[in-house]
């Protein structure tokens, strides 16, 4: 089962690479640097999806006290951080030739980085509590608050400053991206989602095994 998911993810990533380099056109104004977007955008979307699962899993754990929900939340936080880190790093690499600087306190870079730090704190808290049951409870509270904080962070940082090009996928006026770019992005989103699911399943399995080994 896990293995099938892994192969699916690998196939999706291969398809995504083909789409990003062979199918997608060279962008008119930015040139080929724009191809970084096929990693950058899917990674951040999937990371936020994972943090959504952390939120749901945390509530489910506090409500039903199902350890499985806690393991899913923990795995999703870790994998979500991995994807968000990749997104921030690739965004920085894209920023150097495009904006002329590796780092700028632009609205969305800043808010995504703050979310990154919040969930880094989540993992830190998990690492620092010795009693696993207590750690799960505390982390669930932090996961809920952290996920609830995401819209506040984005709105406040948005008002604070804006330099990033407006989000071209998730906007009220609908999608403004040409299909030749949108389709490769969507293929990569699907591939990254599969990879994320594969990592989460693998991590949950590992947590189960670790728990059994300790018991």
């Amino acid at each position: 089962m896990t293995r099938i998911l892994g192969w699916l993810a690998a196939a999706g990533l291969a398809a995504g690479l083909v789409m990003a380099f062979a199918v997608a056109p060279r962008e008119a104004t930015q040139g080929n640097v724009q191809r970084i977007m096929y990693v950058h955008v899917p990674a951040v979307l999937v990371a936020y999806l994972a943090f959504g699962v952390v939120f749901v899993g945390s509530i489910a754990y506090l409500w039903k006290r199902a350890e499985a929900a806690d393991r899913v939340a923990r795995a999703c936080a870790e994998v979500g951080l991995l994807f968000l880190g990749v997104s921030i790093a690739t965004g920085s690499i894209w920023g150097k030739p495009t904006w002329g600087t590796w780092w700028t306190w632009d609205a969305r870079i800043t808010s995504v980085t703050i979310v990154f730090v919040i969930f880094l704190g989540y993992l830190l808290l998990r690492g620092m509590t010795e009693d696993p049951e207590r750690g799960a409870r505390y982390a669930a509270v932090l996961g809920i608050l952290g996920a609830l904080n995401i819209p506040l962070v984005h709105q406040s940082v948005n008002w604070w400053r804006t330099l990033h090009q407006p989000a071209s996928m998730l906007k009220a006026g609908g999608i403004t991206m040409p299909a030749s770019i949108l389709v490769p992005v969507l293929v990569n989103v699907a591939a990254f989602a599969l990879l994320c699911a594969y990592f989460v399943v693998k991590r949950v399995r590992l947590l189960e095994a670790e728990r059994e080994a300790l018991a």
Partner: protein
Amino acid sequence: MSYARRALVVAWKDLLVERRSKETLNALLFFSLLLLFVFQLALGPDRERLASVLPGLLWIGFILSGLLALGRTFLLEREHDCWEGLLLAPGDKSAIYLGKLAGNLVVMVAVEALVLALFVLFFNIDITGALPGLALVIGLGTIGLAAVGTLFAAMTAHLRARELLFPVLFLPMEVPVLLGTVQATEALFLGEPLSAVSHWLQLLLAADVIYLTAGILTFDFILEG
């Protein structure tokens, strides 16, 4: 005992202990005075440069003193072995949260009022016109800080590295509050009307409501043991 009364009893107990010992308040007031020196020394005497960063400095002062005050929220119970006593309080545990929160708010507002007065005095700024708006911003911001801080203080009270972990969890969570309060304070210092910052006030209000609701609903799970 009603819910509100139980919350009040907790707040009253904390304030009474604080009034008798003056442990936290004295040190906090001294600390904020020192902060002013540090700001002044670090930034130099250039008046114009100071004026442009004043709202940020003010809130750094509030956050740092708040960090110290909030981190101590449950220290009393832990050091004097009163944790069980707190747990034995009848009824909904969120009353304890609200009580602790109220006690923190009183201490924080007292320190903030003094810091603000010292800012006016040392940096020679005129805020009489902006004072009502400023009070609103500070009130909303302080609730946002204390709501998360009280919750996290209970969370980190039993951990080994609590002095380290508390700010690490608290500061990134407070980014919306910090941005909102600093931006609103800056506008008010420049003499703009309150209506010019209404979007920030709404954001602060939303943050307060979200943090308070989350705190009330989840505090029970933190206090469990």
